[in-house]
């Protein structure tokens, strides 16, 4: 245990000023201290990617980052993807292509795919597969996730 320190996390455009121990993971801070439980924790050792969020434009595993490291940074989570009632093209594509079943890994996949495609609109299919292979899903067998991401990539390029 150690002393708590104040940090400000900017999540989906809103500042959350919280007090956390140095060891508190960003994932726990987002979920428990800021109440944004859409970010899920699947392994806490950086393999499954369920906790993926976008920090200053980069998809990161929020279980491998401490909250204090994200002080003042811009964090985007799944709660910030939709525009009001209108789903983000990536969310819509997951629904249209049955890219989710239990939905637990879904926020991580959405943030991973959105983060990568925003950075690299014209990513090659091979590189996209490499990226998607960095997260785990236990329900879908990935086929429909890949289909959904390809469909959304097309939509995001034209949009």
């Amino acid at each position, binding site marked *: 245990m150690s002393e708590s320190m104040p940090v400000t996390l900017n999540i989906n455009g809103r500042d959350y000023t919280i007090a956390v121990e140095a060891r508190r993971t960003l994932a726990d801070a987002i979920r428990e201290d800021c109440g944004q439980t859409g970010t*899920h924790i*699947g392994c806490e*050792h950086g393999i499954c990617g369920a906790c993926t969020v976008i920090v200053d434009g980069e998809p990161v595993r929020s279980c491998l980052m401490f909250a204090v490291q994200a002080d003042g940074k811009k964090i985007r989570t799944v709660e910030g*993807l939709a525009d009001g009632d209108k789903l983000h093209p990536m969310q819509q594509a997951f629904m249209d292509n049955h890219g*989710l079943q239990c*939905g637990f890994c879904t926020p991580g996949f959405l943030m991973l795919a959105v983060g990568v495609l925003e950075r690299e609109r014209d990513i090659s299919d091979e590189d996209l597969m490499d990226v998607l292979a960095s997260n785990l899903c*236990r329900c879908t*067998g*990935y086929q429909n996730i890949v289909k959904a991401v390809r469909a959304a990539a097309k939509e995001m390029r034209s949009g």
Partner: protein
Amino acid sequence: MTTKRKFVGRSVPRIEDRPLLTGQGRYAADISFPGQWHMRIVRSHGAHGIIRAIDAKAALALPGVHAVWTHNEVAHLPPIGFRLTGLVALEPYRQTILAQRYVRYVGEPVAAVFAADAYLVEDAAELVALDIEPLPVVLDAAERPGPFDAERSTEASIIEKSSGDIDAAFRAAHTVVELDLAIGRHSGVPLETRGAIARYDETKDVLEMHGAAKVPHWNRDRLALMLGREPGKVQLYEGHVGGGFGIRGELYPEDVLVCAAALAFKKPIKWIEDRREHLIAANHSRQQRHKVRAAIDAEGHILGIDNEFFHDNGAYMRTHAATVPDLAAAMLPGPYRVPAYRARGHIRLTNKTPCGTYRSPGRYETTFVRERLIDAIAAKTGIDAIEIRRRNLIDKSAMPYSLGFGTLGTDIIYDSGDYARLMERLLTAADWRAMRQETARRRANGETVGAGFAMFVEKSGLGPFDKVRIEVTAGGTIELITGVASIGQGVETVLAQICGETLGIDYTRVKVVHGQTDRIDRGMGAFASRVTVMCGEATRLAAVRLRDAILSAAAQLLQTPADRLDIIDGEAVRTGGPGPSISLAELAAAPGTLSAEAEFKSNHMVYPYGAHVAQLKLDRETGAAVIERYLVAYDVGRAVNPMLVEGQILGGVAQGLGGALLEEFAYAESGDPLSVTFADYLMPTAHEMPFVEILLSEDAPSPLNPYGFKGAGEGGITPVGAVIASAIDDALQCPGAVTQLPITPQRLKAILGNLARP
């Protein structure tokens, strides 16, 4: 005039998706209550031993730590009972809630720590010192049994099933084929770890447990019994569930602990498992060794199969009791005529994590065994393996076909099927002949490529009942309440499709309530691919009744005979022409409630069936297998939502490939688990997953329910180990090369090494 809309058979989008896509899901870890305490389990670090001392002083000295429980605090609680296939002989092997004197696997709960904060409780748990005197470990279920305790051995019981005269079959045999095969230790490993949050509501004297899954009603009744409470004084609540696959939602010691602690401390108690815990504490499955023999005649017809197998159940018997070995013994014959059959399954305990079911329990294992056997028969007789299958498949004219024994309290009677037709359709879809020629040509050019084929019969729709209540709400929408559960497979959409079509309302206006024990008195939950079959028909029955009730209410208000009314898009209208109409919302506002209830009962399971084809390439340097083509043919009788059925198949194939090539709970000689992170327990990623071509078939609707449904949850995984083994044999041009799953790169390299030796 609009016509009635059909929803059954259409790939409509899921009603579950929106909250899951927007971060509004409510999984176990998302549930919190003010003032809650966190629980952390102190687990055995030794695989087998006697507990000499547990020292919790340092943990209790930490500010914010409230209590540490050991067996003494829960000694009054009985072990968790058996939910399925409970043999009396297995009862002494049940696990106590916290270890009593002995520990028998690494990960066994020894103490529970309660503290104000999730980080603090982990700190405290690490300070609890366990003094365990080691005992010798038993790790191989096929070796001689060891002692379980002073009175009992590690052979807990033996499962036996037989039909026909097996000795006569072997006396009459032209040839006998014999194999010794092993299936590795895998499990479901859902992406959401387990979790349970208990809260005692003193004003109502009700104990609540949140984070329930799979079988909330059974767990509610069992918890009530264990805790000495009326069933109505314990309520379970299922939120979103991050995958099930058989292992999640069974009643575990941790569930009982949070409930007992919530009652004792009058505080909400929250427990969320971490991944390491999950991999050593949640049910394992699969591991078996089979010594199987087949008696065949000169043309390759099976005369008899005799199988002795050893089921490694880990350290204790949990809720599934003998279910997996029983299913293994029962389902081995598969789609073939086996005139004489004998299975003898040894249920053995070892010093590993205890076992339960994992998607396609008993069938993944025995489909590997049976299809290996078929391939071996082909090799021995020199007759093509497809031709051997053709000669032995049960003909559709023989349906319904009884195996002459039962499982899960039901007689095994295949209800319908045209196995030969599905096999031919898949061979055509795969262009099997061309695939064989092409792989042969590539092998001649030095590549190590091959093609494999495997067939299977699944089972689904386990009864004995399901119950559904449907109500028209004040706003005119429909609420469907049932005791099944959702583990992510699309239950809500499927039931809404059946309800919407039967009633005459858009399926998106049907709200499905499941897994809430305070909303309906009975329920069977979600397992054994039972929901669409059992609850689907209960839904149809209840919707027919509700439709009648709606029409007679409308008949009065519209002054039109009910038989001249219909419900279309949620409005009661006159059939065959214009006239007055009334919406469900208006009807709901009229006096009297509009609701209906129905149960569907069935004592027989229904049997989907299928076949898989795989083409793969081996890398002789790395030992890796790359799947080049993969095809699945599966007959589900009638698909409510083909998109969701295909989703089930795809997910099943991925898990099957994991079990065939990657996933394994390995143990050191000391009994220390070696697969404790996702870096050791390797699950397929998008890279390992081939594109899967699916031939969804509806050739053989079940005669046991009006729609003809059969369950779709498991056929994606069942024969994957078998078909991959078959393809690897072919690639190596060495029949019978694969005898063990998973075929990891190391094992493949070992096979290649053996082949290279003169």
